């Protein structure tokens, strides 16, 4: 990892404006689906409502991070700097929700 003389910008091909637009469209579509689901009582009542919303939001999260924040293309160091804390943060949220009986094992 050390002495990677190339600057990251040159090291990897960046996506183009078109990719960014596509990503934006996907984000918009997911958001629309989310909000739409919110207004369908049958869906809200379903046990799959919460998990699917969480999955959709995680997908949006990942897309923005990978494409807009270029984590997909950037130096792996940044991936480590971001995913490490993210995992600890996620685990902490889960543990706290468990401890306060908001979720169970």
């Amino acid at each position, binding site marked *: *990892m*050390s*002495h*990677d*003389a*190339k*600057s*990251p*910008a040159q090291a990897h091909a*960046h996506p*183009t*404006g078109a990719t*960014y*637009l596509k*990503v*934006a469209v996907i*984000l*918009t579509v997911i*958001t629309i689906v*989310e*909000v739409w*689901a*919110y*207004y369908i009582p049958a869906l*809200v009542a379903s046990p799959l*409502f*919460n998990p699917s*919303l*969480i999955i*959709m*939001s995680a997908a*949006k*999260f990942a897309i*923005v*991070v990978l*494409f*807009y*924040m270029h984590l997909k293309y950037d*130096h792996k*160091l*940044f991936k480590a*700097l*971001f995913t*490490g*804390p*993210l995992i*600890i*943060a*996620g685990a*902490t*949220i889960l543990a*706290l*929700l468990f401890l*306060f009986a*908001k979720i169970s094992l």
Partner: protein
Amino acid sequence: MASHAIAGHDDGHAHTHHTTTGLDNRKIAIWAFIGSECMLFASLISTYLIYKGKSLVGPYPHTEYTDAAGKVFPAILDIPVTSASTFVLLMSSLAMVLALQAVQLKGTPLPANAGWWTRAQRSSQLWLGMTALLGATFLGFQAYEFTAFVREGLTIKTNLFGSTFFTLTGFHGAHVTVGVLWLMSLLWIDRTRGLGPKDELVVDIAALYWHFVDVVWIVIFTLIYLIQ
């Protein structure tokens, strides 16, 4: 003078000195900062979720509440408005990434037959301004939301929901505010001196911050607004 420094000679030896990884110090620092922010928002979001449904009195986020005097408080969250503001923030991320691209592309010759879109993509000022504007719009929505809630009887003191809700979204809003100010100063530099590929890093760092604030909202929107 400001432009000179922010764009080139900030703290950190990156531009003049060799670094181990070849990466710029500031970019490493901002990623570490973002990692730290993950824990900050994790704590805030956990608190909101832990206290969800524990308020002794209303108003409540998703359900109606009738107080002792018989006064009815409707469910307080306004999903249509927040959906709109969420969309605005998402689009600001698009604008931001295009702003970065515009800065990177500065100086590369435009093909002769370039269409409006290709041209537009070269305008860093357009996209920086757009991002800041969308961010400010988001803040406007938030200001509207907050005042509406207060009018409807929910303040930061009312109940656990009020305290956690305003604090969580308030913290996020403060982050957006900082971001907007940051973008405006970049825009100002761009207008006075012009940002070019050599300033890529400066814009990149602001962009990373901005996108992070956006992804936090993605999580908040789902966990706080949509899930009941």
